[in-house]
């Protein structure tokens, strides 16, 4: 399916690198994070993050591995608690936010297959849980939303197939359809293109273009944009747990320019393992607490 060419974002003047992205008058802030910080097992990972996403934005969180972009998306969904700062979703502070039906989360692909077979339709239908009441069967509106979500990602003909029969890229599209089935207004996608072959990246871009046309707000984590590049209105580049750029989209190669790192002090050399970027040392013990398991 060809990617619908969409015009770039509203012609705002390109802010300076590191400048605050301010919301224009009349635009509702869907996500507002002020001075956010995240610590994993007591070690600061994200520091001093200000991020405001307004309705209809298509934001790409970019940066090298270990720069904290996935942690930021997990903090924005409430999966990772903030140590300081305040987070508002749709104008409500996270502690009081209970309209999870307005949020669609697409985690990294690992969760698509499990120990028991599940059909594509069943996985997508589980996205309706945000709108279903306990012990009620699926209604007509639910079935229509599931069918519509499958159609958007182009997998309507695979609905009855098992998820494990699909390729990695198709599984990623199933996860997008699952989020879509809940008819949310705000989407968070964690590395949707990682490890996905080129044809599926194009199919993914086509699905996201459909979401954008419908006025959805999208925040996605991407190491490289690839076919998604024409959709992105705004790029936020992370480096070592801080935002170093927030403004008009950058080409993939620009993200990794050395000047983007100048916004923070130079202490890279102290990191022994740059590639893995361990946030907390691992201490193995049968009954010990996993440092990664402290969320919510």
């Amino acid at each position: 399916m060809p990617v619908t060419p969409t015009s770039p974002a509203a012609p705002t003047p390109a802010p300076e690198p590191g400048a605050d992205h301010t919301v224009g008058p009349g635009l509702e802030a869907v996500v507002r994070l002020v001075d956010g910080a995240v610590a994993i097992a007591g070690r600061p990972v994200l520091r001093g993050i200000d991020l405001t996403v307004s309705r209809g934005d298509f934001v790409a969180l970019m940066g090298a591995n270990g720069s904290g972009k996935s942690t930021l998306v997990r903090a924005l969904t409430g999966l990772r608690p903030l140590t300081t700062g305040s987070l508002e979703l749709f104008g409500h502070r996270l502690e009081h936010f209970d309209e999870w039906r307005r949020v669609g989360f697409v985690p990294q692909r690992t969760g698509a297959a499990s120990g028991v077979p599940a059909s594509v339709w069943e996985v997508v239908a589980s996205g309706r849980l945000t709108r279903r009441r306990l012990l009620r069967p699926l209604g007509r509106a639910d079935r229509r939303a599931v069918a519509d979500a499958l159609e958007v990602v182009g997998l309507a003909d695979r609905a009855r197939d098992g998820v494990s029969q699909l390729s990695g890229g198709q599984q990623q599209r199933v996860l997008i359809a699952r989020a879509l089935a809940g008819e949310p207004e705000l989407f968070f996608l964690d590395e949707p293109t990682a490890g996905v072959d080129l044809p599926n990246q194009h199919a993914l871009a086509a699905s996201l273009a459909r979401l954008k046309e419908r006025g959805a707000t999208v925040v996605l984590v991407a190491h490289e944009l690839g076919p998604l590049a024409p959709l992105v209105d705004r790029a936020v580049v992370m480096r070592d747990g801080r935002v170093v750029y927030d403004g008009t989209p950058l080409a993939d190669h620009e993200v990794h320019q050395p000047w983007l790192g100048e916004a923070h002090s130079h202490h890279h050399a102290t990191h022994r393992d740059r590639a893995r970027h361990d946030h907390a040392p691992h201490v193995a013990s049968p009954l010990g607490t996993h440092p990664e398991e402290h969320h919510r």
Partner: protein
Amino acid sequence: MSTLELFSLPFMQRALIAAVFVGLAAPVVGTYLVQRRLALMGDGLGHVAVTGVALGLLTGTSPTWTAVVVAVLGAVLIEVIRERGHTNGDVALALLFYGGLAGGVLLTGLGGQSASRLQTFLFGSITTISVADVVTTMVLAAVVVILGVGLSPQLFAVAQDQEFARVAGLNVRAYNLLVAVMAAVSVTVAMRTVGLLLVSALMVVPVATSQQLTRSFRTTLVAAMALGTVASLGGLVISALVPAGTSVSPGPTIVLLALAGFVATWPVGVWLRHREQLRAPFPVDPDAPDGAVAPLCPEVVPGPADHRHDEEHVDHDHGPDCGHVAVPHGDHVDYVHDGHRHAPHGRHYDEH
């Protein structure tokens, strides 16, 4: 004694009722355990429940209820360890399991009970089940089935993807605890039928069997319940019908019958999966000109070298019944032929 007379005996009828309820309930929980890759959790809870049984024997209270209480406590503890624990939490679980088994054997000895009394719980004694135990079994099994089937959308979502479930606003911890408690309850319910050491088989083997042939969660769950009931009833009937003089206990018969079902379906599952793999569509190159799924035939446009006519070694027309594997490729079908991919094009075949 004729077969009919045998099945009209009260103890046999109680055993049959218990077998049906246990066969229905155990695979329900087993499905969620297998989905979360915790297939051995039932086994571990069975070990923990041994201590509960021994406590009941020691204090003179009903071993079924003390086993339920201890197994539920053990299940909650396992769930807490699993939630907060490190990746090698299985070591912690092992510690708990062996503690449960050793504690049970020690307590039975302290209480002056003979090993054979404990053995009826370890390996089952469905034919000695009392009326009160049958009622308990029916009630607990019904609760497990109703919760496990009624809450299946929520339990499925939580077991499939915890992070997604959490962002969807589900109370993941509560649902995880519910599955653990349901597992503990079904362990003790099945204890009189197949015994604590074999209970996990009735939870897991029907699920393993049904997922050889199924592609969706719902059919896996329903088929596992059916298989569990068949195995449970069938094992009991087989052990009752053996000629006099031989002694066949129902518990192991039920488990071996369930395993026989798995052995019978496994090759079918292997074959089905292999066939699906062969017939998975070939990928389509999105950058191909004019949306063509493969380079155009050189008869139309001079094309790249990897694309050739191939007429020589095709001695028949490829079609739905030609015997070659047909694989969808974009808007047409490729036929796999001696390691080649033949796509019909006019009156000849193209190499794709």
